[in-house]
């Protein structure tokens, strides 16, 4: 079972207590976005082969979102950190 550290609870939990959200979002769409920007924002995923930063939700715990770095080549979780300092576009 995947073990994931929750930075808010300061403890390690089973993957089953967590919900995967998505890879870390790009910047929000600007008002003057082109069609290409919108298509990119809606449909294109980074699909990274290697370490990727992702949003996870501690659904059966503190119910807060945080960032997890996971290596998609090995499926291993490398680190977690809180969303502090990420701002609205984080």
């Amino acid at each position, binding site marked *: 079972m*995947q073990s994931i550290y929750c930075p808010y609870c300061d403890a390690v939990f089973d993957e*089953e207590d967590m919900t995967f959200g998505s*890879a870390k979002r790009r910047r929000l769409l600007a008002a003057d976005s082109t069609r290409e920007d919108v298509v*990119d924002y809606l*449909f294109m995923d980074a699909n990274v*082969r290697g370490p990727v930063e992702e949003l996870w939700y501690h659904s059966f715990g503190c119910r807060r979102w945080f960032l997890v770095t996971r290596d998609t080549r090995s*499926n291993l979780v490398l680190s977690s950190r809180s969303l502090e300092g990420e701002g609205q576009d984080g």
Partner: protein
Amino acid sequence: MTGKPPLGWASAARPGGIDIGVNHEVARSVHGYSLSTLLRQGLARHPRWTPAWRRASAKTSYDIVIVGGGGHGLATAYYLAKHHGQKNVAVIEASWLGGGNTARNTAIVRSEYASAAHGAFFLASRHLWDGLSRELNFNQMVSTRGVIRLYHSEFEMDATRLHMSEIQANGSDWEFLSDAELRSLEPLMNRNRDTRFPIVGAAIHRKGGIARHDSAAWGYARAASALGVDIIEGCRVTALRTRDGSVVGVDTEQGPVGARAVCLCVVGAATELAATVGIKLPLRAIPLQAMVTEPVKPVLNHVIASATQNFYANQSAKGEIVIGTHQDEYGSFAQIGSQSTLMRSMAGFCEVYPALRNLRLMRHWGGNIDVTPDESPILGLTPIGGLYVDGGFGAGGFKATPAAGLTMAHTIVHRESHPLIASFGLDRFNQGALRPDTSVGAH
């Protein structure tokens, strides 16, 4: 059965009113496997079997290069040679032939889709499977045993009622089973009402079943090779090459190979290869897991699938129970998958088949599926001239192997999408014309 006339499976198929030109004529060059050759070779202690396909090394250039030697790539090469006379074709495979996700899937063939575009495409594929063993002179072990879907709530029953007439209108069979029929077809199933998710109903797709994944890869490879296609194994394609907006070849571990047309038939590496020429593909690589138990005497008569219980299962010819899980929640290229997905599917299987819960698992594995935002495949042209893509089938790619190969071969030669795949072009994402089919799920 329903009141509809029986489907003319042996006649030429016109799914969705489109003549797909099914032609099960056996290519002369792929004769050779028969009872008489088996007897002759057997009595003489097998002195003269030859390799099923030539081991080719890459020439400096080809008319058409197919990237990926799985079922789809090999089928595309075969139909290019057989239907279009294209002989200067190479299939370039990073590993060994059919050793990627073709080897990792559970080989279900079926065609019950509600959307007209999906219905016509997958029905064409199901037609093609029926004559394929003879055409390729290679036993595809197609077992038309039926696919039974279990429903555990009135909500699921309502959704099925909604889709049933659409599926039938597309030419596929699909009907509810009564409680007595389900008991007689699958007597081992747990029908207690005091389980977490009691079975409240079931439906059957009688033309569904299973085939043999290795046979598909090997059969298409053997036939394509006999028609002159070069099959190059152990040679990874690292990048695509373009000039003035058109493809001119690929870079491989063994050097550059020129081509006037390139077709991507890979899973996992598709986004990376497309990115080498600035093309974005809306794909996420997601693990899909499966496992087999020790062999037992026949106990499962159909393919059994349950969305609520997160599993589908069938019994192989050897007696092993083959169990597939729901796709993982998050992406990975590790080919192992998430244990929580595995445990959820196993719990579901054991609730439906408590009598099988003590069977030992012999193997468990993960493959990769490429999933699109609308969970429909991407087939056809790209903004780069001469570059074509076949991918994004999610968990449903194996059954599409013959139709994907046939339609992609047509598309490459005519530089225009085959009518059966016109709805599945990459440009649908630019147009916001997404093509979901949520009738029964991907497996």
